[in-house]
């Protein structure tokens, strides 16, 4: 989304068309979090299905509340070079009108931005599924959304240091994709590998959930990127179109890579390709041409593909490859903007190829800052939480599955052998 502060405009006027689009875009992004839960749930073993899904559902609870009370203010109150301010704590100071430079109700802006923070926190769960305790993960997401997400969002969209130096990040290469990817990296290290990792085959229990989840995520991504124009119109259309073109190209590239490697175009691979392509176009969607998006999609397949094939041979159990898909995809996208941003399409700014060399430098700086900060902060945060409570379930509970141990439920029950316990006491 464009830096709000750089757009001088009259406050208050609300456009019904812009508002209509932003309402829908917000709903679409909010739908992505359950879709992510479904996608992730399909990729784990059946005994951890509900737990995995619940990590995403949990984000809709705790991160929403954290955003309303604190996060929004940190990200969007004022123009501090590091973080925003505290005037909008509890959404104080937000009336029913529009923010300066926007034509949608300010509350809608709050919710649109909330939806980004929610799914970003949920994404990190991919690194720690099948072993991390549910309670500590909720605590982690709550704090992470305030201390990692909100400051990074401020950097690119709230008038922070990076934005002032012209870093372009259409819909979240910095706070969403790289932040979740490198936080996932840290989380996988702190929490440690699953006990069976590298010894047994830990396979996706339901490929349909993965494919449907990826399909719904793509659907939501049209709101994610298209909505980052913060208005209906040309910017929304360009970023929307690119959100179709880039993942389509990634999908084609991934199928080709799969065929080259093992003569089989895998379905889990296709689902992954959709995510990788959508991630890569996220920072670039409103800045590059449609053919540029096709090229970015093709290109983005390569690093993520290689990393995904290589990673399971290491000892890093970053279980659902958030780093490969979101971390690397985000880096590719942000750097691509530095090269191929085309003012003729966006009306906003050029990359190296169209004459602005400094942009690439600052895009690279944004990559470095984000990766280091997200990794470091997440590392420390999880270590600190780990001082107060165990991050992982016991070995026995891990064997039994987290659905039973964390939630007291099974995803798929037949009811046989389930004896009703009649309780005489009240609720």
């Amino acid at each position, binding site marked *: 989304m464009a830096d709000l502060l750089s757009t001088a405009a009259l406050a208050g006027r609300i456009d019904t068309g812009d508002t209509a689009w932003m309402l829908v875009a917000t709903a679409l992004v909010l739908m992505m979090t359950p879709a992510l839960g479904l996608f992730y749930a399909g990729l784990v073993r059946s005994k951890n299905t509900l737990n995995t899904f619940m990590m995403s559902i949990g984000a809709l609870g705790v991160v929403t509340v954290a955003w309303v009370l604190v996060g929004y203010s940190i990200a969007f109150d004022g123009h501090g070079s590091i973080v925003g301010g505290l005037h909008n704590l509890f959404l104080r100071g937000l009336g029913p009108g529009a923010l300066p430079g926007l034509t949608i109700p300010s509350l809608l802006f709050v919710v649109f931005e909330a939806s980004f923070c929610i799914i970003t926190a949920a994404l990190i769960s991919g690194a720690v599924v099948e072993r991390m305790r549910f309670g500590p993960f909720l605590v982690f997401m709550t704090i992470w959304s305030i201390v990692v997400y909100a400051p990074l969002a401020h950097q690119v969209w709230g008038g922070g240091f990076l934005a002032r130096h012209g870093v372009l990040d259409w819909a979240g290469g910095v706070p969403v994709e790289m932040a979740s990817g490198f936080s996932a990296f840290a989380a996988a290290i702190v929490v440690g590998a699953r006990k069976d990792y590298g010894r047994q*085959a*830990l*396979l*996706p229990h339901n490929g349909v959930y993965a494919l449907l989840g990826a399909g719904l995520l793509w659907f939501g991504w049209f709101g994610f990127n298209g909505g980052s124009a913060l208005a209906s119109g040309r910017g929304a259309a360009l970023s929307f179109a690119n959100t179709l073109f880039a993942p389509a190209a990634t999908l084609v590239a991934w199928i080709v890579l799969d065929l080259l490697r*093992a003569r*089989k175009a*895998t379905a*889990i*691979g296709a689902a*992954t390709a959709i995510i990788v392509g959508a991630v890569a176009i996220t920072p670039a969607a409103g800045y590059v041409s449609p053919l540029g998006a096709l090229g970015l999609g093709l290109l983005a397949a390569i690093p993520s593909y290689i990393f*995904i*094939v*290589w*990673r*399971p*041979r290491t000892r890093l159990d970053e279980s659902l*490859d958030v780093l490969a898909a979101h971390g690397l995809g985000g880096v590719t996208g942000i750097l691509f903007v530095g090269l191929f941003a085309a003012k003729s399409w966006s009306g906003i700014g050029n990359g190296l190829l169209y004459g602005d060399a400094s942009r690439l430098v600052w895009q690279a700086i944004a990559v470095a800052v984000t990766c280091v900060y997200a990794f470091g902060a997440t590392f420390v945060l999880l270590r600190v939480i780990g001082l107060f409570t165990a991050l992982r379930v016991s070995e026995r509970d891990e064997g039994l599955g987290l659905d039973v141990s964390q939630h007291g439920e099974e995803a798929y029950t037949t009811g046989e052998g389930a004896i009703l316990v009649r309780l005489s006491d009240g609720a």
Partner: protein
Amino acid sequence: MKLVVAIVRPERANDVLEALYRADVRGLSMSRVQGHGGETDRVETYRGTTVKMELAEKVRFEVAVSDHFVEPTIKAIQAGARTGDVGDGKIFVLDIDKVVRIRTGEEDTEAVTPVV
């Protein structure tokens, strides 16, 4: 009384059912199992994880028959299940001490004679 247990290919299960029907075998139970034998393993890949799938889907029949019915039953199963390729499966015949029909309490041979 014998218990004939047969492990066959799932795609032949219907043929086995039909062959048993023609051989006048009426009672049977069936379940899905996974088997390992002389078949070649399949390789599958899930993202970066490559696995060798050692087990193949099979269907397990369990048929209790009176002694003189054992041979026809085996013949029928063979007829229905055979393709000639490795992986066609096995038949095991076990001895049964006693059979009880739950509905009536009838025992042994009567118990497996269907009420038609």
